[in-house]
């Protein structure tokens, strides 16, 4: 093989692929550069931001977003959106909390039931998308609205309030708290355990995407559904699994939130779905599917966490936070587009 390639090296068709171009083809590159820039920027502005306690602080919201952004990115690479990803967080937390506090179910059992509910939501989303062929945007928009109503309606019906409280007084709470909302001490600084889960989920997601058959199918159905069906990719199964992965993550985050705060509001998670999508897009996922990175999405979440807290550490008026986010999203998307163009043009 080596001889063949050296012989062939004279062929004008063969081009050398430089390290730069190879790097540029990585979808997460823009996000990684952005994250470094933002870290340096806020570190210069605030001493606390770069201190261990500051890092622990901004990693915390990043972890929550990141745990969701990983499956959301996979789903986007597979060519779909899940607008119900945010409210499903509320549904998960509410289910667990209501079952424990109102129906005296053992916390762990309630969490298992909540997981089943979430997987059911994901399955329903995926099944409807596959069966109807309608855009997932529409299907999950209806799930989003439906769950939003159910979250409030059911909560009010059962508790007469719009939040469920008192989880902290339930048995097994301490154990669940340690698993989902505990802290890990590194060098005297407490870090939320969610950060560890986030890293693990990112690693797992990336492995699945890049190193398994399933991951190959995800790229394929997002890139060209018809073509992938033609070569025998089980598109329906892959799509449904992706939706279920998103809702499983929503289960995780929803339960983390309920256990951490000891209560959950009926509106929890509402509006967050866009943030997950934004994180995935900053991380290099194409809105049209077929291209993207799990690590990139996690870095996107990290950017989110650093910016939301960095603005506070810098002592700026937090009213401007959304504006910065918007500007950053635009920059990220433009950078990604530039990078992809450059990579593809030099490939022609």
């Amino acid at each position, binding site marked *: *093989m080596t001889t*063949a*390639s050296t012989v*062939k*090296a004279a*062929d004008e*068709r*063969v*081009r*050398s*692929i430089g390290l730069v171009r*190879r790097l540029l*083809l990585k979808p997460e590159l823009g996000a990684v550069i952005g994250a470094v820039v933002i870290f340096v920027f806020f570190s210069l502005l605030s001493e606390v931001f770069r201190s261990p306690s500051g890092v622990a602080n901004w990693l915390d919201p990043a972890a929550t977003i990141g745990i969701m952004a990983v499956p959301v990115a996979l789903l986007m690479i597979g060519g779909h959106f899940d607008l119900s990803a945010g409210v499903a967080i509320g549904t998960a937390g509410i289910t667990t909390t209501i079952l424990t506090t109102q129906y005296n179910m053992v916390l762990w059992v309630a969490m298992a039931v909540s997981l089943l509910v979430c997987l059911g939501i994901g399955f329903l989303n995926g099944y409807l998308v596959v069966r109807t062929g309608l855009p997932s945007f529409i299907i999950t928009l209806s799930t989003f609205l439906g769950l939003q109503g159910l979250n409030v309606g059911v909560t009010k019906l059962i508790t007469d309030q719009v939040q469920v409280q008192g989880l902290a007084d339930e048995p097994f709470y301490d154990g669940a708290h340690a698993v989902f909302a505990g802290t890990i001490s590194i060098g005297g600084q407490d870090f939320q355990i969610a950060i560890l889960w986030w890293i693990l989920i990112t690693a797992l997601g990336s*492995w699945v995407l*890049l*190193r*398994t*058959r399933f*991951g*190959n*199918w995800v*790229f*394929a159905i997002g*890139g*060209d559904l*018809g*073509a*992938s069906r*033609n*070569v*025998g*990719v089980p598109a329906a199964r892959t799509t449904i699994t992706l939706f279920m992965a998103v809702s499983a993550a929503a289960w995780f985050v929803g339960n983390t939130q309920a256990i951490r705060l000891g209560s959950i509001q009926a509106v929890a998670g509402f509006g967050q779905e866009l943030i997950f999508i934004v994180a995935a897009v900053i991380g290099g996922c*194409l809105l049209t599917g*077929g*291209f993207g990175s799990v690590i990139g999405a996690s870095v996107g979440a990290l950017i989110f966490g650093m910016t939301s807290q960095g603005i506070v550490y810098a002592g700026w008026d937090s009213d401007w936070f959304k504006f910065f986010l918007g500007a950053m999203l635009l920059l990220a998307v433009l950078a990604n587009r530039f990078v992809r163009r450059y990579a*593809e043009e030099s*490939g*022609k």
Partner: protein
Amino acid sequence: MTATPMLELRGVRKTFGNVISLDGVSTSVRAGEVTCVLGDNGAGKSTLIKILSGVHRPDAGELLLDGAPVTFAGPRDALDAGIATVYQDLAMIPLMAIWRNFFLGREPTKGRGPFRRFDSRTARAVAREQLLRMGIDIRDPDQPVGTLSGGERQSVAIARAVYFGARLLILDEPTSALGVKQAGMVLKHIVQARDRGLGVVFITHNPHHAYPVGDRFLLLKRGRSLGDHAKADITREEMTALMAGGAELEELAHELERDPASPAGRVAADLTEEASALGIHPDGR
């Protein structure tokens, strides 16, 4: 060459409603031979492909596989019989790396249980090696297919079909959208596949592409066979003339050439000539 044909069509007819797509079409493909199917748009080429690849079943006539009559229930059956079809859209995902495309749907795995994973090292190596065997050196199998040229993409698709055990390749207009150089490359791959003992059905509307590589030519027009010839029985000129519609074309030329001296008449003559040379039917069908 006298062996039983790998696949044979006898008097095949296919209708859709009151439209007769194919009628009385017969031809054969042998191992190590290229059968070219020539015809214009609407000649029935795509219906023929679909019958060969198991998508449609003929209404009349028969299909013989290695000499025995066979009915394909679906594309899967045809695939299992070693018949691989490379469609025009190639069934490749432009944004995905070459090696990922190569093994899409049939990924090699290693490990077991939850650790079963896509054996990417093998996939990369095999994709590279298979393409090398076709004379394409892809330095970086991680390159997205979208960055390849049209001819290279065709080659990847052919290499993929060959690697996954095709004995009979059906190529649907593989050269139609390509420039001269690229088309030449694809033709080279067709010859390579033939030399490796595969049967090839090469569908095209261009006799200049078909003649150099073909061993047998089936000419289709409006669903009917204009003849199924071995290479020895037909010259390129005869074939071109047949393709261009013979008498019809002459008539048209006369009509246009009433006054050969006039510039318009000269243009018409040039056009007709050129059209016939390219194998384009002058009446625009």
